[in-house]
């Protein structure tokens, strides 16, 4: 826009600031609540400024957890969630990279059928196939393990699709040049295709990490052992304690903690992502 009217500039900023406030206010409230003792929060008036219990609340959570909700330390929950999200994201990327490679660069029998089968899985997310998948995971003895938490979530048509679309834009001559240079298919894949997919990998990693982090239903089903509780499950368990007032200050602190790793991933990856977008190669 080349228009330069002070009134419009002010209006634009007011609208933007209002938007930011709407998004950030709940986060602020959660953070503020996590710094007060429980009675303050139950008094009926929600405080708007941080209290004095920041260190106590958080250190209690991280080391001991909340006794009423099983007493699993939040540190462990964070670790579990992190491992699960990381395994799902890297697993998805690894599987999708290689399956897209097979579909785009090789002529094998039933290639299109393979492609459509992968495509069909888009319509079958975990929630739809939850009972049979649970049965399989249970029979394989993968309940209460990281394998059980992550493997059923790894197969991903979305990422395969994205990589396929990207590979189709890589000029054929690049593959031919590599062939002339004596690179076999796997060498071409690792030396040329994967480095070229760097920015796509970053983007998909962000999306899939968040997807993995936010999983609720599946971890709830396959883990019964406290040591595999993830943070999202943990929050819910804290809210629904029986025969007692919810410990809102601890719940809010947990929520705040749960927010941090995804934010960190987005911030770190976004740099790579933008860098990749600016330096177009090919």
């Amino acid at each position, binding site marked *: 826009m080349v228009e330069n009217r002070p009134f419009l500039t002010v209006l634009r900023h007011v609208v933007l600031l209002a938007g930011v406030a709407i998004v950030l206010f709940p986060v602020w409230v959660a953070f503020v609540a996590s710094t007060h003792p429980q009675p303050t929060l139950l008094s009926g008036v929600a405080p708007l400024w941080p209290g004095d219990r920041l260190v106590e609340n958080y250190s209690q959570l991280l080391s001991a957890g909340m006794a009423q909700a099983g007493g699993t330390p939040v540190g462990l929950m964070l670790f579990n969630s992190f491992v699960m999200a990381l395994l799902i994201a890297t697993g998805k990327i690894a599987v999708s990279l290689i399956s897209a490679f097979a579909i785009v660069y090789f002529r094998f029998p039933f290639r299109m059928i393979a492609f459509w089968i992968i495509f069909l899985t888009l319509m079958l997310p975990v929630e739809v196939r939850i009972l049979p998948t649970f049965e399989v995971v249970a029979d394989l003895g993968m309940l209460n393990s990281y394998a059980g938490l992550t493997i059923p979530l790894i197969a991903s048509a979305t990422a395969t699709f994205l990589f396929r679309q990207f590979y189709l834009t890589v000029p054929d001559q690049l593959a031919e040049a590599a062939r*002339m*240079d004596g690179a076999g298919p796997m060498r071409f894949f690792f030396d040329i295709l994967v480095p*070229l997919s760097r920015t796509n990998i970053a983007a998909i990693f962000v999306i899939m990490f968040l997807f993995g982090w936010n999983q609720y239903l599946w971890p709830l089903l396959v883990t019964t052992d406290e040591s595999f509780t993830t943070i999202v499950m943990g929050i819910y368990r804290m809210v629904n304690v029986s025969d007692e007032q919810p410990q809102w200050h601890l719940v809010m602190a947990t929520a705040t903690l749960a927010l941090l790793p995804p934010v960190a991933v987005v911030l770190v990856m976004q740099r790579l992502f933008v860098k990749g977008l600016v330096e177009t*190669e090919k």
Partner: protein
Amino acid sequence: MAGIGIRDVVKRYGDTKVIHGVSIDVADGEFIVIVGPSGCGKSTLLRMVAGLEEITGGEVAIDGRVVNRLEPKDRNIAMVFQNYALYPHMSVYDNMAYGLKIAGLSKDAIRERVDKAARMLQLEPYLDRKPRQLSGGQRQRVAMGRCIVREPAAFLFDEPLSNLDAKLRVQMRLEIKQLQRSLGTTALYVTHDQVEAMTLADRLVVMNGGVAEQIDTPMNVYLHPATTFVAGFIGSPAMNFMPGRLGGDGRAITLDTGAPLRALPEPIVGHGGEKPVTIGVRPEHLALVGQPEAELTLRARVVETLGADTLVHGVLLDKDAAIVPVAGEGGEVLAARLPGNVTVREGDTLPLRVAEGALHVFDRETGRRLADV
């Protein structure tokens, strides 16, 4: 270093035959240019030599060894692609070194070869850069360097200059030629640009519709085109074609205007009596003469002054000054390239004579050359 033998090579995609048995013998150190319009199969032929395309029939031999079933890397050749196909994420050095790394050369040997090639191509200051930080000409040089370091038996070029602007193209053309000469490596070069073809080639292969129409030195192709296709394809502006007849004695040539042209010194062997022919004359072989010596009369329609030359596009007139239809590239219009100091105005009538030996006679049915006078 070695020659390349292409023997009766055929390419078929399903039921469609795109190359109908091409044979070319490339001598050691020779620069062969394959030229032709798009879709004539020239790139397919090159890719078959490279091993990127399967050979349906016939044989390709490099250095006397049949390579039909060998992988590209085992054929001891290197190829420059049209869009260079440099690895975008690798530095110039790594681009050139990649093939050698795979071949398992030691680090020192790789460095030595890459440095040597970089020196030769004046790429030394750019070794650490990525391809995207280079200009078109520099990328082209890197693509060449990637070939040189492998010290192959032959270079294959697939329209390597078509992505460059006109000025750079001329410069790179010279560089490629010099490089090939100094290395003495056999080269097979595909292009659709006839200037590139004429200037680079030791021998030219003119292809059309999957057939090699003529294989000869550039000058021979220019002076004695084997077919009307070759005659029309090589040379700019294109050769003029006029309908004519070969006399019953196999010597006399008459234009369909009725005007007799010069006679052949000897009858064409096996001419089989009178027959329709196509007469070809290059625009640059027409000279302005006095009326009595004129063989052709042209009425100027469009005059283009190029400085050194004047291009006259006009229609052919018979002796009654009526327009004669001819079957040339531009329909009825013939072209004549006259010296730049001649003043011609639109509408002028020009008496013209064809230079000695520059009148080409082709069989009208087969399009093959019968004689040049």
